[in-house]
């Protein structure tokens, strides 16, 4: 891949704003574009009844631009700049409804994101002052710049950067913006938030760990162990809380919390196979979770039902939507041959092979327990929807879904299964990349 860089302008003589296109940019960029397009298409119908669509459309478009710049950012300062911008551009998407709840949630989102970004900024200063360059380069730029003198503070800097990015990645205990912002945002916005914006935190972690600090610096230190443990706790707690939540969109939000930590776990294992699994999961989870949020949007838009226990018998009323949901759920649980299985398999094998002590076994076990809980919080919706029972006394007439809303959902459902059958192009590319990084 041609790694030529494009310098936009120089902030100071050592701080250029540059763009660079590498494999990670391509994967994140393409995922972003697919999800953005589908959500935009979906929004055309979803916002028909709503007001202030122009404002929404403006910020939605701005978010895309900022996100693409973020994906293509070539050094830390560019990344940081667009990272902050992304937060600001996506806040209006959250408070779109204008209710008190939406505004409070948006502010919470802003607060958490800004705090996370400050942590990153702190780390950034130290990296900037110690490393010769802050340009993203495979394998990191810190190795060789760390002396016994500055080792302590540099590790802290890297740790804070990872933590800061994981605020966007929804890692416990900094996740609560996610679970309050998703239920109040309009469905396409929460789909985009969960599918892509959470992933930008993940992108930050990838850049920090593999392109700035370098796996060799972090491996075996407290940074790796702490983040591993935190991500494992999040994987479990996220799915447990999702299992116990009645509100459909919040359940999905908790699910995102848990699934995003799968990725963080995979990245922190620092084994090539786990890396492949993690990046696969970035793509697949983006597809699946977007699909699930669009599904919840259809349900809320057409019937106004927000709670999972109100959905009994709905599967018979909108079968296509429910079948899509079923396939998306199976993929998220990781039932072969759906896409989720590929990432889960690679994550677990990588963890088992990785040199991370007892976490090698606990990690995969927790991932599988979480898969069980995922089945526990998604499958009942499918089952109750399709099989309300013989003595069900609800409405049974079919609901007509506008193609604007159903087509994106169907495409996402297909995309959640197909790559599982033929993941080779993606996994081959990632294996090559992982070999280069580690």
């Amino acid at each position: 891949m041609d790694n030529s860089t494009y310098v936009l302008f120089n902030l100071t003589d050592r701080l250029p704003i540059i763009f660079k296109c590498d494999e990670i940019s391509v994967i994140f960029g393409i995922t972003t574009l697919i999800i953005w397009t589908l959500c935009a298409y979906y929004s055309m119908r979803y916002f028909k009844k709503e007001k202030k669509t122009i404002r929404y459309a403006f910020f939605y478009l701005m978010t895309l631009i900022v996100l693409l710049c973020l994906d293509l950012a070539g050094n830390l300062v560019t990344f940081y700049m667009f990272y902050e911008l992304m937060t600001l551009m996506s806040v209006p998407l959250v408070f779109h409804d204008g209710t008190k709840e939406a505004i409070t949630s948006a502010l919470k989102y802003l607060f958490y994101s800004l705090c996370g970004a400050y942590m990153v900024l702190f780390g950034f200063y130290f990296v900037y002052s110690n490393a010769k360059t802050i340009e993203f380069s495979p394998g990191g730029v810190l190795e060789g710049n760390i002396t016994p003198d500055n080792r302590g503070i540099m590790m802290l800097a890297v740790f804070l950067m990872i933590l800061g990015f994981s605020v966007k990645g929804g890692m416990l205990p900094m996740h609560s913006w996610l679970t309050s912002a998703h239920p109040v945002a309009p469905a396409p916005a929460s789909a985009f938030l969960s599918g892509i914006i959470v992933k930008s935190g993940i992108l930050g972690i990838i850049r920090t760990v593999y392109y700035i600090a370098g796996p060799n610096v972090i491996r075996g230190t407290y940074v790796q162990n702490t983040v591993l443990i935190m991500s494992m706790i999040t994987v479990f707690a996220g799915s447990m809380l999702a299992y116990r939540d009645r509100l459909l969109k919040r359940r999905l939000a908790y699910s995102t919390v848990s699934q995003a930590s799968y990725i963080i776990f995979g990245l922190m294992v620092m084994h090539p196979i786990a890396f492949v699994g993690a990046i696969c999961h970035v793509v697949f989870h983006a597809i699946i979770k977007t699909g699930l949020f669009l599904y919840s949007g259809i349900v809320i838009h057409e019937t106004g039902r927000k709670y999972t226990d109100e959905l009994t018998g709905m599967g018979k009323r909108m079968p296509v939507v429910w079948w899509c949901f079923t396939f998306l759920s199976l993929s998220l649980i990781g039932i072969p041959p759906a896409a989720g299985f590929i990432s889960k398999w690679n994550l677990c094998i990588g963890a088992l092979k990785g040199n991370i002590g007892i976490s090698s076994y606990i990690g995969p076990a927790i991932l599988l327990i979480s898969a069980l809980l995922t089945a526990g919080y998604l499958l009942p919706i499918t089952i109750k929807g399709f099989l309300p029972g013989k003595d069900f006394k609800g409405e049974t007439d079919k609901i007509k879904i506008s193609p604007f809303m159903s087509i994106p959902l169907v495409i996402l459902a297909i995309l959640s299964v197909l790559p599982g059958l033929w993941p080779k192009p993606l996994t081959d590319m990632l294996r090559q990349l992982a070999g280069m990084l580690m």
Partner: protein
Amino acid sequence: MNTYDLTIMNICDFGLCFRMDGFRILYVCIATFMWLMSMSFSREYMAHYSNKLRYYIFSILTYVATVGVFVSADLITTFLFFEIMSFTSYVWVVQDERKESLKAGETYLAIAVMGGLVMLMGLMMLYNLTGTLRIDALNSAIQPYLGTKELYVTGCLILFGFGAKAGAFPLHIWLPKAHPVAPAPASALLSGVLTKAGIFGVLVISCEIFAKDVKWGTLILGIGVITMFLGAVLALFSVDLKRTLACSSVSQIGFILVGIGMQDLLANENMLAVRGTLLHMVNHSMIKLCLFMAAGVVYMNLHALDLNEIRGFGRKKPLFKGIFLMGALGIGGIPLFNGYISKTLLHEAIVEYTHAMSEGHVSAYMINVAGMKTIEWIFIISGGLTVCYMTKLFVAVFIEKNASDKKQKEFDDKKDYMNPLSAVALTLSAVYMPVSGMLPTIVSDGIADLGEGFMHAAEAGARVHYFSGTNLIGAMYSIVIGALLYLTVVRKLLMKDGEYVDRWPKFLDLENSFYRPLLLIVLPNISVFVCRFLDRIMDYTILLLRKTIYKDAKLPIEPTEGDELTHYFGGIADDIIRGLNENVLSYHPMEPEVEHKLAIFRKYYKENTSIIGRSMSFGLFLACTGLLLVLAYMLLF
């Protein structure tokens, strides 16, 4: 025997591997035969059901998946089809959408998902150790790890998954729930073929990974003995026709597991155990096909399965009686029927091991000669229990008269209780029992030969004389025990005033008194308590900070509704509306409430801006802007 391999590269990243050898061909044939028979029977059985299309589509999908499991040559391929099979067969269980069916389906799905995930963990660990999951390469690949703790853990995890599907104790709970509620042709397949898919997996790990491993053999033997005995006892206590058959399936799976355990224990002399295991698998498949379809005939006509209600249904129906009798004799292990052949082989294997153990030929783990003698007796008693509960069923349905004479007359008058197609399907499946039992050297031995390669049987030893004196005496023990138990336990203990009563204590239901409370109440509540704490901790910290170090602006006081602006414009608009109501809109007058609405809008606007203004985020935001301005100033000047 020739084998044929087929590998499809790159599907699902690891490729699919299939193989055809004797055992697999045999089981594909059996599966195909059973599907054909049960689908033929379904035409009549399902005639009054709704959602027929769904039933047939999912039956075909399950068939494809099941065949996929049997022909897979790679554990990951097995796993893939196994999962598909679990999910598609779920639809069978909930076919009629009654409350019980949905609950049973829940249990079935929960066990399937849990089993699948635990198995996946095992497969991953195995792959991590060996680097391959190809079944024929496993044996050589695990050699360096033999006897390590890790390998045993791996094996147990995989066993959990396959054992759950097979119905081994303590994961047998789904069988007695799911079988009675599923449509009878589907129960036949669930019990006859799907449990065998689980057994297939157990065979793979026992014959490839832990071949000739004494500890593993003992574990499987132990599970087998418990399953065998417990299933038989459960079946004896049951008063529901299909539930009895389901519990009987559990028990027969126990017999098969005993056979698998003996294969590992007997190591290089495992010929008898291998043949016995395979034959019992085949026999159980065929018998359960026949018996479940017979139960289906009863249900199709009476819509009841309780023994007291269906009592006497089979009187004066010679064909039906004959079919059921074949199945009953087969499963009871009566000489001249197929069950006798396989049970004799399994019994011989136990005797052989006991003998070899007393002479010190073979290694043993935790079991001594006395222990093996006990196991032999449990085996014989379980056989006796089988005879006993099948007698109970047969007497109830075909010999005794119904309590109400009117009903009995109705039963006797029913001549068109099944259509010709169903009759052919049932007869064809019943024919196998006597044929293979009476011509064991041709039919049974031929079938047993097919599986030897797959299970790595040792070189052929002496053939068993099936109808020799000692073997017949073994069967006689079972029959006598069965008859005694029937006369004492069933007629005295389990009957009251001529009615069959369910004397099985409710609290002994493993699912309702252990699994459900543990998995649905205790564990989730404990973990949710911890998780909630983690969930809230950051929010509360922030709240604390807000209350202590951050000074909130005062809430604006708002005693009256609206202000001058809303009052003025709202008032004008309301006047206009009032005016219009009198003239233009006299038929559909509008409410003059613009003033009020404006006031409310203003209130919201105020509130929202005050939320933003008072928030800590906004404070941070302002600080950030200030910093940026300072930065800009420094950079520019």
